[in-house]
């Protein structure tokens, strides 16, 4: 007999997510994914000024703020064949690096740590032993006895108040929560410190972006961050050095707290290296561009098929035909009119809600496909593609992290094991370490270029009569983001966004092949159907960022059990 579990809403993500799972013999046997919210931003964009598109699209998401802004300006520039000044590339790259640092830190600590860390167990921890554990992992100055005692007292005061607030009704004491109390207390302390360091990353973004969330310094043709070392209102030495200091502080947190925590938690939960692989086709795009033409990058992108690293094929420019010609979206199971599978330029967005149909349409999320295959996107995809293609910086951090996990776990952990629920967390931390280094590199590139007297930030766009088509991509914190535009007589005729969480959270396609969330849940253990913590672990490992929900259907003829909490 199969048992059905519904998690709705699936919390600690962006957007409204619903997960249903069919559990047989203590393991998930089947999974469906379905979005439940639609806002119609692609429809709203039609007929508007293409220069305004980035301001609209950035509002698709406030968690991955900046990413739709960047993809949008790149898209319009691609349609116009417009190159932007190198200073503008460096400024955009610093936004990319800093936003990634904020995002990966927040994802690990605020959004997913509570799947692995039992806050209530931390009340049993000995602060002295906690400090010993923490200092065996890193030299972080915050890992002292007094700090851990204060954090423990803070948790106790909260529990004693009778008002547990956001901690109420968590899966505390769950049998799958297996960290020792000291590891839990250390993680709670770092959870609180993470709030300070993600803020520093945002402060640095605000210095060049005007504010955060939702930066306001982009423009089709470059950036609006005026550079003048001899003016008090522009990007000058004081502003630049403030950024650098903040970036260095955040890098310190990544190196001394985030990476060691992921290594420790990953090693202590090493059984989760065997769950959650799901779709093992990977797609990433290159980013941190190094020239005005968009042909050289600090981070590689490409594809790997069927988990076979030898199949790696690179995507090499902003005009890459391998990428441009192979993306399609299927709406066979999504609430739009028709059952087509189309290239984004040819898509339309006509909603047609049918309610939940087991064998028909069940989601607002479209199902993107690359060369007609489902693909997993995100930090894991980028790290594996970098590793498989011999990218030096990726190899350095992957080898280091795998060696340290192997030491703590007491068993050899290879790169193939990254294809798992825990592996996605490790890959995200590795990517954060790379971007902390690259952010500072691009800061130096900008400062050096300014020193050569180049203050250019903007090439004004002009919109010719007739039709232009363009696409732009960005390797966002959650993976491959692409925007696609058709411009006619200077107005938007069609605009489509194919977002990372669409790649990962999409429903089945016409052939019935599940998307990555759906596939990754199959085989996961479920110890307590009343409290399906394991579902949260695997879905959170993708870092869902969707204004949507996920469903799973009960197969015909099987008994459906409604699971309710006691």
């Amino acid at each position, binding site marked *: 007999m199969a048992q059905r579990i519904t998690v709705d809403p699936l919390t600690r993500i962006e957007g409204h997510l619903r997960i249903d799972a069919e559990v047989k013999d203590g393991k998930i046997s089947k999974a469906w994914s379905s979005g439940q919210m639609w806002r119609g931003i692609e429809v709203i964009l039609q007929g508007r000024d293409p220069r305004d598109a980035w301001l609209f699209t950035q509002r698709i998401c406030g968690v991955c703020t900046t990413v739709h802004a960047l993809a949008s300006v790149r898209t319009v520039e691609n349609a116009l064949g417009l190159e932007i000044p190198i200073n503008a590339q460096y400024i955009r790259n610093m936004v990319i690096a800093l936003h990634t640092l904020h995002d990966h830190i927040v994802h690990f600590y605020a959004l997913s740590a509570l799947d692995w860390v039992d806050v209530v167990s931390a009340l049993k921890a000995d602060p002295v032993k906690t400090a010993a554990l923490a200092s065996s992992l890193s030299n972080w100055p915050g890992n002292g006895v007094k700090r851990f005692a204060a954090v423990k007292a803070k948790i106790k005061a909260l529990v004693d*108040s009778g008002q547990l*607030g956001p901690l109420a009704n968590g899966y505390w004491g769950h049998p799958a929560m297996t960290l020792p109390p000291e590891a839990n207390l250390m993680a709670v302390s770092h959870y609180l410190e993470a709030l300070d360091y993600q803020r520093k990353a945002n402060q640095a973004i605000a210095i060049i972006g005007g504010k955060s969330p939702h930066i*306001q310094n982009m423009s089709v043709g470059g950036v609006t961050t005026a550079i003048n070392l001899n003016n008090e209102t522009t990007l000058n030495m004081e502003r630049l050095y403030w950024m650098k200091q903040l970036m260095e502080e955040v890098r310190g947190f990544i190196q001394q707290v985030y990476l060691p925590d992921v290594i420790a938690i990953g090693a202590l939960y090493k059984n989760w290296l065997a769950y959650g692989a799901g779709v093992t086709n990977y797609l990433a795009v290159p980013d941190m561009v190094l020239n005005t033409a968009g042909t050289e990058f600090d981070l590689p992108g490409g594809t790997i098929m069927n988990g076979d690293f030898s199949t790696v094929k690179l995507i090499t420019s902003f005009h890459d035909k391998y990428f441009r010609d192979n993306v399609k979206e299927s709406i066979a199971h999504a609430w739009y009119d028709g059952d087509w599978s189309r290239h984004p330029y040819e898509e339309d967005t006509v909603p047609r809600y049918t309610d939940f149909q087991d064998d028909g349409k069940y989601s607002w999320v479209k199902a993107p496909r690359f060369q007609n295959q489902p693909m997993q996107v995100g930090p894991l995809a980028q790290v594996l593609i970098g590793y498989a293609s011999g990218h030096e910086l990726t190899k350095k951090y992957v080898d280091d992290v795998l060696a340290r996990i192997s030491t703590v776990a007491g068993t050899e952990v290879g790169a193939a094991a990254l294809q798992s629920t825990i592996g996605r967390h490790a890959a995200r931390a590795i990517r954060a370490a790379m971007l902390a280094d690259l952010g500072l590199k691009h800061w130096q590139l900008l400062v050096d270029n300014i020193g050569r007297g180049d203050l250019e930030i903007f090439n004004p766009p002009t919109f010719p009569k007739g039709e232009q088509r363009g696409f732009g991509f960005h390797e966002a914190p959650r993976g491959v983001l692409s925007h696609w535009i058709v411009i006619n007589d200077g107005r938007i005729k069609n605009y489509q966004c194919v977002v990372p969480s669409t790649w990962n959270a999409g429903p089945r396609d016409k052939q019935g092949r599940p998307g990555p969330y759906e596939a990754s849940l199959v085989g996961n253990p479920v110890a307590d159907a009343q409290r399906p913590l394991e579902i949260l672990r695997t879905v959170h490992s993708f870092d869902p960022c969707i204004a949507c929900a996920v469903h799973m259907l009960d197969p015909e003829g099987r008994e459906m059990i409604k699971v309710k909490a006691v």
Partner: protein
Amino acid sequence: MPRQCSADLAPLSRRDFIKACTTVAAALGLSDSLIPRMAAAAAAPDRPPVIWLHFQECTGCTESLLRASHPDLARLILDLISLDYHETLMAAAGQQAEDNLINTITKYDGKFICVVEGAIPTKDGGIYCKIGDRTAMDILAATAPHAAAVIAIGTCASFGGIQAADPNPTGAVGVRDLLKGKTLINIPGCPPNPINFLGTVLHYLTYKKFPALDKLNRPMFSYGRKIHDQCERRPHFDEGRFVETFGDSYHRKGYCLYKVGCKGPESFSNCPVVRFCDVGAWPVGTGHGCIGCTEPKFWDTMSPFYERLPGIHIPGSGQGIVVGAESAGKKILAVTGAAIGIHAAVGLGKRLVKGGKKEKRED
């Protein structure tokens, strides 16, 4: 239907409540001795319970609180309020999360603050946003009437926001269009400066009432004056010194951004004064015009964002201290009238002028 999610809001009896506390305490692995304390907290909570509802939104407003420093997020949710329901931050999920929602509505009927982030789609029965099988409309209707007050955070919850932009495919509206007879505070902005939300909450925590509001239910301390009237670049406007295009020499001198689309003259907000992220930054400060994000319908009335606002009186006498800019100022004086005509022709400028008049203050 896979699962019922009805909000049975009948008040719990005391016995039921103690039973609920016992269950929670057991689930948490806590001592029974805490149960009386949990019951006491429910009767007279030290920290006001807050239910935070997310509808058609991007979570940018919640994200803005991650950037706040005084108070910071940890202090806010652990020391000042009790954030009982918040999809992005709460530990609980699924049934346990929905139980938290219903428990708080029941236990603190008439006492909790309801914060709404995001617009509410009303077209086609509200099917464009569903959580736990209920539409956003249903959830708002089951929650907000039980609150002591409702705070709409962001332009979406205040006025409908981006999804309400023409042609508003989902019939999105703000809370004010659906909720009547309840104290409602609007904190618009895309997202709003967290200072504006936090200042309002701190005022309430301190004085048990909300600060003075304008006609759009926005706190006066945040939305009492136009950006234009507080802008550090205002002297350049007054003297007729304008940026002609991004990256030009005037841009590098920090001149007024009116000609490259700044909507500060029609936008009420404290951005130039409080700034963002504690680094003295704000959009105009980094060389980009204001887009008017605190105003109703700004996605339609303030766009195209890179075209100048029509109907703005330029006081510049052309007597600016910078020679190059003097002529720029004279040019703008001459073309303003023509610009109004262009905007009226596309139908956007017209609406803006109308909207601007409606929002005129009495002060």
